[in-house]
């Protein structure tokens, strides 16, 4: 394999060409995603930004492998995505933690399934528990944690399998505004410490601009990419700098209204 080909694969970890997705409903076929093109590069923070019910979650489900495309091609490191895999970690909006397991139990779960020995996996899990700032809560059950802390567990759990790609489906959507700001800062810190390709879904423009290297603005259902913005503002970003506000105004103005 030539150098260039190798780099080509490495450069584009997720490659999505002309992807369509429709669901059968009693009223007939309902198309959610239409002719969707996307390329996610290594260690890039890519944000999918779009109105309410525009199929962003479906896109995450397709990349994760929970659902299959109805048309087009969706490749992960050069191979068609067929089923879920630990190399593509998912952080769910609902957290989807295992409520009968402690923080440690949740974070080490993936390694346990892979047959990693207890001592080794707890050491590795502890590393990620520390990274998300949950030391001291290893033995807590999810019900005993706040919303923000639960999502930290969710992030650590996905990170612990050392995935190539992190898929985040509105992970902070259920949090109150204050916690949300804090978690955005935390996520940026974690991402700087452990670089990964991130595909992050949100309908919050501030969140998108704060975190993204690149924003894909999506249209309303059926969803497709409307416009791309490369965000090269220095990090951490100032939420009230003139450049930030100008971008915010521009992107908001081109976004489809949900109503």
């Amino acid at each position: 394999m030539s150098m260039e080909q190798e780099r080509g694969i490495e450069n584009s970890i997720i490659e999505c060409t002309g992807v369509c997705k429709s669901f059968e409903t009693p009223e007939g076929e309902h198309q959610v995603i239409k002719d969707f093109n996307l390329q996610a590069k290594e260690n890039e923070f890519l944000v999918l930004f779009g109105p309410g019910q525009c199929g962003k979650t479906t896109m995450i489900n397709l990349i994760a492998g929970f659902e299959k495309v109805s048309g087009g091609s969706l490749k992960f490191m050069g191979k068609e995505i067929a089923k879920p895999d630990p190399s593509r970690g998912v952080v769910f909006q609902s957290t989807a933690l295992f409520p009968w397991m402690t923080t440690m139990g949740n974070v080490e779960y993936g390694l346990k399934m892979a047959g990693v020995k207890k001592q080794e996996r707890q050491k590795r899990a502890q590393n990620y528990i520390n990274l998300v700032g949950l030391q001291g809560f290893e033995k807590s059950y999810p019900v005993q944690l706040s919303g923000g802390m639960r999502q930290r567990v969710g992030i650590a759990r996905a990170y612990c399998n050392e995935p190539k790609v992190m898929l985040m489906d509105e992970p902070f959507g259920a949090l109150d505004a204050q916690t949300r700001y804090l978690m955005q800062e935390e996520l940026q810190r974690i991402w700087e410490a452990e670089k990964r390709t991130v595909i992050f879904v949100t309908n919050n423009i501030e969140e998108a601009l704060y975190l993204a290297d690149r924003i894909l603005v999506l249209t309303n259902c059926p969803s497709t990419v409307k416009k791309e913005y490369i965000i090269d503002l220095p990090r951490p970003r100032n939420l009230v700098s003139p450049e930030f506000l100008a971008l915010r105004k521009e992107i908001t103005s081109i976004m489809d209204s949900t109503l």
Partner: protein
Amino acid sequence: MMKKSVLKGRASDKTINVCCACAAIGLFLILWYWGTAATKLGMMIPGPLEVLGAIGRGLFGKVGRHSIMAHVGYSMMRVMIGFAVGSIAGVALGLLMGWYGIAEAVFNPLFRIIRPIPPIAWIPISIIWFGLGEDAKIFLIFLAAFSNTTLNSMAGAKSVDPEVINAAKMLGANERQIFTTIVLPASVPSIFAGLQVAISSSWATVLAAEMVRSSEGLGWMIVAGMNNNDMIQILSGIVMIGIVGFILAIIMRKAEEVLCRWNKSGE
């Protein structure tokens, strides 16, 4: 500070509950006493003092060939074996039906027809199959435990959050691992709801089985009392059945509290 006051509130609630319970039991005993002394129906049965006295004497003494404690032991032994085997089978079948559509399609219709038949209806058949010994009684208790755990376990397996299943898949769990590490623990609260009903149903069934044919156990105490016209022995049996049933329910609740700790907030 807040936590402390909440705990305190809970503790005093508990004290009030215990006081109410004691008062109600006391009132019941007084009514019983008054009833046997002053009413026509009551005069046919012995009063609480005679019955409690008889239980006190018989607890480690002799009623028939054994002490009351031994009778309790015989009944419990039968319940424990039947309940253990029946609930393991019921939980296993229920989880399979809840998780694999094909298992539900095959077993559910059959099960729906068998389930409404009370275990005691099987007494004649159990005697034909297993004779008059222990096996027949254990078979009946097995049925009681089995039919009461299956549906709850199935409901538990069906109600597992699909997103949690996706999370497990994403973390690399295979089909078998998803069943044992996700579906099974997620169903534990529903399973326990079934086990609660199953234990009281098993307890009721052992007494019925013993009343039909046995030479020991609490059910025997009642039947033997009836045959000898010994009202005190009958009522001693009834009181012991109530007490043991009550203790069994408490044990099950405690076990549930420990195993389902994760399901309760604010601990």
